[in-house]
């Protein structure tokens, strides 16, 4: 028996090494399945919790144009959550189980959404930096070894690039046409979101617990630190064009590495937020649970309506 399992695992790894995608009904090691369920569902949770800080500004957006854009973006995030939940469900977990894990606090979502959106510039900075970092993380996932996850990510990435652009555009309008107060608002938002955005790439490679195995399984393609560096290198130039300062005195070009050096990241803040003590952890989860509970009667009524139709069709 163990010899058979061994060879199944060898066949599986050989497929991964040959860049053949794994599909839902293919044999896969339990640990691979578990890792994917954890990662894809965390990703899905992040998409729908990510709607909360932004929805705060739907009614407060400064113009009809900005409101329409923000609504479209929030709707996209809901769609992205759906693609990802559907990908996770192909691994044999139910949507209800996944949502229950989120609502009971057992499952995590991206810590970035536990920070508050205090002013309108925060919405722009979320698009520019937070979605920018998300895209950097997500593009390599389009080549993930698990087919349904990779296909969901292709769809997400296609839609996500407008999110980053609209954020940059909103900030650029404030910087070029705004009052000094509005420009200060942008700088203040950048100061607050810069470090949390860098933390979105996860702990440093040396301390990242899941990285090595995920790389071997073709779930992860590029290391946390490498992605973070790519993001910093791309963002410094954008900040210069925008006319904002990035709040890191140690940020400077390193000619030898052809990359920017940056100051130390405060990982104690990261772990503090991951472990539930960020500024908005409780509020976000409470909002999610309330939305789910308030919607219960709609879900039940829709099912009852369908059952009634079926009975009527049978009787006729």
């Amino acid at each position: 028996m163990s010899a058979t399992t061994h060879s199944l695992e060898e066949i599986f790894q050989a497929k991964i090494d040959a860049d053949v995608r794994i599909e839902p009904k293919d044999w896969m090691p339990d640990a691979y399945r578990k890792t994917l369920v954890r990662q894809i569902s965390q990703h899905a949770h992040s998409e729908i919790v990510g709607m909360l800080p932004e929805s705060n500004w739907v009614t407060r957006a400064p113009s009809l144009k900005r409101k329409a854009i923000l609504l479209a973006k929030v709707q996209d995030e809901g769609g992205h959550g759906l693609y990802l939940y559907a990908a996770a469900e192909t691994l044999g977990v139910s949507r209800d189980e996944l949502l229950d894990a989120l609502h009971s606090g057992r499952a995590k979502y991206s810590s970035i959404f536990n920070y508050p959106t205090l002013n309108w510039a925060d919405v722009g900075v979320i698009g520019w930096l937070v979605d920018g970092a998300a895209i950097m993380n997500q593009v390599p996932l389009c080549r993930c070894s698990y087919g349904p996850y990779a296909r969901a990510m292709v769809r997400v990435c296609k839609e996500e690039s407008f999110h980053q652009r609209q954020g940059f555009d909103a900030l650029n309008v404030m910087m070029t046409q705004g009052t000094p107060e509005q420009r200060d608002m942008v700088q203040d938002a950048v100061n607050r979101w810069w470090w949390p955005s860098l933390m979105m790439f996860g702990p440093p490679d040396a301390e990242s617990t899941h990285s090595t195995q995920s790389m071997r399984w073709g779930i992860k393609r590029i290391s946390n630190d490498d992605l973070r560096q790519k993001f910093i290198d791309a963002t410094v130039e954008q900040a210069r064009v925008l006319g904002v300062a990035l709040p890191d005195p140690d940020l400077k070009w390193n000619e030898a590495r052809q990359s920017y050096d940056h100051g130390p990241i405060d990982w104690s803040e990261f772990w503090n937020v991951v472990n539930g003590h960020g500024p908005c952890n409780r509020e976000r989860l409470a909002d999610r649970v309330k939305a789910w509970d308030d919607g219960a009667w709609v879900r039940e009524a829709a099912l009852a309506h369908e059952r009634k139709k079926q009975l009527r069709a049978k009787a006729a």
Partner: protein
Amino acid sequence: MSTKNEWPLWEVFVRSKSGLDHKHCGSLHASDSAMALQMARDVYTRRQEGASVWVVRSDQIVASDPDTKDMFFEPAEDKVYRHPTFYKLPADVDHM
């Protein structure tokens, strides 16, 4: 955790424009076919990706078994004469 109160799962197929096939693009939960169609439109065609949508209950799909894939598809493997490249033609008519 019970799943009996979950809305059933539907597979979504979208034809991106007339003349092309409907292509599988994902799945969603909906209580009935009308809702499944509307949600498929909202989720999968927000940027004019579709000219037509099909939805079908996932439990109605019959699929081949990946474990018997080799046996199932093997009969076609040794019939190379079904491909035009099997036939070597004189150089003069090689564009046939």
